C-alpha cells in the first residue's frame, strides 16, 4: 500500500498533515502501537525538515509486508555537511522557526533514533531525499 503527499513549504500551520494522515492509516491497518509511534515521530520530524529547510516537496510512504519505507523529496538548498547536521544541537534554522519550537538540532538525530534504516541523499543547490525505514 502506498500513499503520496504534497508537502507545502509555505504554510507552516499545515506542516505535519501528511504524518497525521499516515498515522491514521497505520492505526486502521492494525499496525502495532510501538511501531506507529516510531513511524509517527520520525516521519513528523522529516516532514517538518522538508518544510523548514527544503521549502516543501513530496512524500512517498509505502507499507510493505515486512517494513514501512517513507521518502521525503525536496528541491531545496541541500545539506552541505551531513556529519554536522547529524550532530545533536546543530541547526541552521532561522530565528522565526526557533520561535515556533523547532530548530534545536534534534531532528535528524531523532529520526535516526526511531528508525531501523535512515538514508540521506543530498546535492547542494539541487535538493535532498531523506528515506526512513522501520521494520514490521
Amino acid at each position, binding site marked *: 500500500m502506498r500513499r503520496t503527499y504534497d508537502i507545502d513549504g509555505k504554510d507552516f*500551520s499545515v*506542516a505535519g498533515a501528511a504524518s*497525521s494522515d499516515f498515522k491514521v492509516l497505520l492505526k486502521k491497518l492494525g499496525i502495532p502501537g510501538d511501531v506507529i509511534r516510531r513511524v509517527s*515521530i520520525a516521519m513528523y520530524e522529516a516532514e517538518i525538515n522538508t518544510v523548514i529547510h527544503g521549502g516543501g516537496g513530496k512524500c512517498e510512504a509505502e507499507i510493505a509486508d515486512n517494513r514501512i519505507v517513507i521518502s521525503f523529496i525536496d528541491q531545496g538548498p541541500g545539506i552541505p555537511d551531513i556529519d554536522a547536521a547529524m550532530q545533536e544541537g546543530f541547526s541552521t534554522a532561522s530565528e522565526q522557526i526557533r520561535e515556533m519550537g*523547532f530548530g534545536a538540532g*534534534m531532528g535528524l538525530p531523532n529520526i535516526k533514533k526511531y528508525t531501523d534504516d535512515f538514508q540521506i541523499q543530498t546535492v547542494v543547490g539541487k535538493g535532498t531525499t531523506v528515506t526512513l525505514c522501520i521494520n514490521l
Partner: protein
Amino acid sequence: MLLSEIKATLHAVAATGEDDAQLSQVDISTACGSDLLSDVLAFVKDQSLLLTGLVNAQVIRTAEMMDIMAICFVRGKEPTDEIIDLAREKGITVLTTEHPMYVTCGKLYAKDLGVRADAQDL
C-alpha cells in the same frame, strides 16, 4: 493523576470544553514542561501531559505524534479557535492556566505527578 485533579491543582480551564466528569476519565502518569517541540519529540513518554508556553498548531501536531493525551498552556496563553478545533479533532484535551511554567511544574510535582518516572530515569 486524573486530569480533573490536574485542572483543579492548576486552577485551569478546559479550553476544549470537557467537564470534570470527562476529565476524571483520563489518568496521566507524567508531565513534560517545554517550549522546545524538538525536545518533546526526543524525550516524552506515554500517558503524558505537555506543559508549554508555546502556542501554535504544531504543539497539537507534536502531541498527536507522541500520543500525548493533554496539553496545558501556561502563563495565561490563549490558544486560537483553530488550535482548539485541531485538538478536538485529534482527541487531545487543552487546558489553560494563569500560572507560569515554573509554578505549574512545581504544583504538579508536589502532588507526585511524574515523580516515580523521574526516579526510574536516574
